[in-house]
């Protein structure tokens, strides 16, 4: 996504040179958000697959599909591919994404899935179509929550296992995490919170049949979906000369080194709006940062602008559209400004000390997007509370 958006931005800016796109997947680049939702529940999953941008074919891109880059020399801007081809370039966009984390030792077990790529989704869909007796989702993050919701929509029995005491416990204040937990339970998803996974048991044919929890419980399961985060794809950049620290480290303009920009899940940069180093895995960040990075690559250093977004994402779970704008953590204050946690729709502000940091909305997208602008404006927590009551 970020790479194609960067290419699109450069074409729109009038760049008519060669743009070569390297990617290890063989599919036409596709949009990922539907994979955990519509792709798993639609009668015909192919209706949920769409190209990453509608004008992909008109961008004049040269493809190296099904190929991966194995090294980069930051000094000469040479990229070496897995088949030995060396691409010489005047500029490099690093949009190599991230890989889903797996449970060690489960790679070869049938019935155990991660969900990141279209091939992952095809494999999971096939297992769900086989009417499993129970699906266990490991990790109550957004991917886990969406997969659980999709399984419930299909009428499957689902258990979500989460090591933290609340869903999204690292990124949401407890009131909101509790709401997420209640949403699961209200839709018949069983939750096992605050307990880790000891291991998976397989039957004689090498297929998973149970999940063993740290407290000794054993949950029978035909399908296991592991949603425990991602690892940025930076291993191939060891020795490149770039700074790697849980992502490719860029400056505030997305520049990682002269002639090299990074964007999307793989990029870490200091967001001047929050004064904080970030690496975001949201769809919209891949879009916006890709455009910014492509533009940055063509700009003179003196004209380069800082990338200062208010992070935003949505998650569709059951019949709810959840949106979070901003940046928050477990210790922040929460103030309901519309509705209550028992309502089908509500909006809560999230802040701490002097600052409005985020807005969390359920089925209230317009309100969330309005408050997103206030976050961008950097208004104080007191002003935010006053504004919401006036």
């Amino acid at each position, binding site marked *: 996504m970020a790479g194609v958006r960067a290419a*699109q931005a450069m074409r729109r800016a009038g760049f008519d040179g060669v743009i070569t796109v390297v990617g290890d997947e063989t599919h036409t680049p596709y*949009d990922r958000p539907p994979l955990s939702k519509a792709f798993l529940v639609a009668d015909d999953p192919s209706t949920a697959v769409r190209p990453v941008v509608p004008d992909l074919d008109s961008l004049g891109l040269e493809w190296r599909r099904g190929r991966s880059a194995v090294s980069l020399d930051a000094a000469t801007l040479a990229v070496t591919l897995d088949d030995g081809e060396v691409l010489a370039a005047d500029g490099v966009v690093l949009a190599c994404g991230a890989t889903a984390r797996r449970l060690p030792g489960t790679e070869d077990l049938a019935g155990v899935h991660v969900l990141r790529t279209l091939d992952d989704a095809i494999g999971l869909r096939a297992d769900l179509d086989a009417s499993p007796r129970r699906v266990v989702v490991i990790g109550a993050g957004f991917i886990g929550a969406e997969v659980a919701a999709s399984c419930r929509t299909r009428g499957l029995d689902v258990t979500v296992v989460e090591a933290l005491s609340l869903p999204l416990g690292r990124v949401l204040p407890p009131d909101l995490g509790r709401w997420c937990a209640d949403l699961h339970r209200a839709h018949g998803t069983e939750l096992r919170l605050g307990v880790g996974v000891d291991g998976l048991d397989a039957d004689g044919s090498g297929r998973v049949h149970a999940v063993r929890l740290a407290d000794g419980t054993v949950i029978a399961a035909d399908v296991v979906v592991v949603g425990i985060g991602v690892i940025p794809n930076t291993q191939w950049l060891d020795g490149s000369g770039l700074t790697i620290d849980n992502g490719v480290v860029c400056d505030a303009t997305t520049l990682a080194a002269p002639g090299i920009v990074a964007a999307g899940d793989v990029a870490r940069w200091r967001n001047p709006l929050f004064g904080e180093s970030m690496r975001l895995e949201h769809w*919209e960040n891949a879009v916006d940062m890709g455009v910014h990075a492509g533009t940055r690559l063509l700009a003179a250093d003196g004209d380069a602008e800082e990338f200062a977004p208010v992070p935003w994402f949505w998650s569709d779970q059951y019949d709810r*559209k959840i949106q979070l704008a901003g940046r928050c953590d477990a210790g922040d204050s929460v103030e309901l400004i519309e509705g209550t946690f028992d309502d089908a729709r509500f909006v809560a502000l999230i802040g701490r000390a002097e600052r409005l940091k985020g807005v969390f909305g359920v089925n209230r997208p*317009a309100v*969330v*997007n309005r408050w*997103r602008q206030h976050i961008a404006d950097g208004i104080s927590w007191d002003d935010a509370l006053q504004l919401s009551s006036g």
Partner: protein
Amino acid sequence: MGFKVEVDYDKCESNAVCMAIAPEIFEVRDDDFLYVLNDTPDDSERPRVQEAVDRCPKQAISIAEL
């Protein structure tokens, strides 16, 4: 040459990203539906409408040349 804003309402999920970019053109109301307030905006609005097209999570908005 002017242009027309087109929305595929089968795809639209009312994420309201377009409304944040161009509130004079796109409005998501309390009924959760998107309303296009002006489907033939002035050509000077083209960059903002293009941004709404590009950032729509559902690829539900398009520009038709008139």
